[in-house]
């Protein structure tokens, strides 16, 4: 009865779910190539092309001359990541973690910004954020057993009455980290999907750009930074041996 209202027909276009594109047979179970895979593959290609270009530029760089445009960008990125890791983990341990933290930060920033290209961000898929958080979880416990040996386990039972809370706290770390990233990016995706579905097409040219600045650029960069900072904080908590 309300068919001729523009709003109600526009609402039908709202679409922000994960889309499966081609069905693959993986040992008898159906596996879909989803929009998250495509986004991650595009991000991987971008990072790979950038890394190869950076490698060629660094090899050809003349140490006698001042660095040019692209080399300056590379140096800025490398020194920014170095400073961030040194600030978060201390100079003694920074060198062994800079690779992973820098890679994680670049991939997360590009994934979160991929909403600008019309892709569905891969970090709005709980599978990918939970995988990243599980990597952090295993790194935390590897560092814990490496630096604290057996006292890592006994510390969990230190006040014996609090031991269930300590154990739940350890398990909750990857869940809360992954849900934080997932929830933030998903909320941006949902908001943008609703707005693109609600407004008429001629308004989509200009008006959602303002919201993209907040939901994709600001929120995405903050959340990538927060995920990386929390990874560094949790890992470096294990460095002090009691």
């Amino acid at each position, binding site marked *: 009865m309300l068919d001729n209202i523009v709003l109600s027909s526009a609402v039908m276009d709202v679409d922000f*779910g994960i889309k499966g594109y081609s069905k693959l047979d993986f040992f008898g179970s159906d596996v879909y190539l989803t929009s998250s895979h495509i986004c991650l593959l595009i991000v991987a290609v971008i990072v790979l092309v950038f890394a190869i270009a950076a490698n060629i530029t660094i090899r050809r760089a003349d140490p006698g001359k001042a660095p040019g445009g692209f080399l300056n960008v590379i140096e800025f990125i490398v020194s920014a990541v170095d400073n961030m890791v040194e600030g978060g983990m201390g100079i003694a341990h920074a060198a062994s973690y800079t690779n992973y933290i820098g890679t994680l930060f670049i991939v997360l920033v590009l994934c979160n910004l991929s909403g600008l290209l019309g892709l569905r961000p891969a970090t709005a898929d709980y599978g990918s954020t939970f995988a990243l958080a599980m990597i952090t979880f295993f790194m935390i416990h590897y560092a814990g057993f490496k630096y604290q040996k057996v006292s890592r386990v006994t510390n969990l039972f230190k006040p014996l009455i609090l031991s269930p809370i300590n154990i739940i706290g350890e398990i909750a770390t990857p869940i809360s980290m992954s849900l*934080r990233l*997932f929830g933030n990016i998903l909320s941006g995706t949902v908001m943008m999907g609703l707005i693109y579905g609600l407004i008429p097409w001629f308004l989509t040219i200009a008006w959602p750009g303002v919201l993209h600045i907040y939901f994709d650029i600001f929120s995405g960069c903050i959340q990538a930074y*927060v995920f990386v900072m*929390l990874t560094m904080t949790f890992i470096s908590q294990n460095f002090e041996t009691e």
Partner: protein
Amino acid sequence: MSNITNEGLVLACSAVGAGLAMIAGIGPGVGQGYAAGQGAAAVGRNPGAKGNIMSTMLLGQAVAETTGLYGFAVAIILLYANPLIKKL
């Protein structure tokens, strides 16, 4: 009221529940605002440490946001992956 199907009732109550779940947004809003206020006061007292204060404040705000995001996850699950409709 007799022409409401069971499925319709579950869907309507799920929509109400999703809205109620988003009340969880009040807490992070208050907390983030308080953290931002304290951060502004800290920058006012010690403008030289602005970078450290900003990063600490953003980290704390992001951690405080987690409870709100749990509410958001509940709302999204109720709307798009409703577990209750399968129990009919």
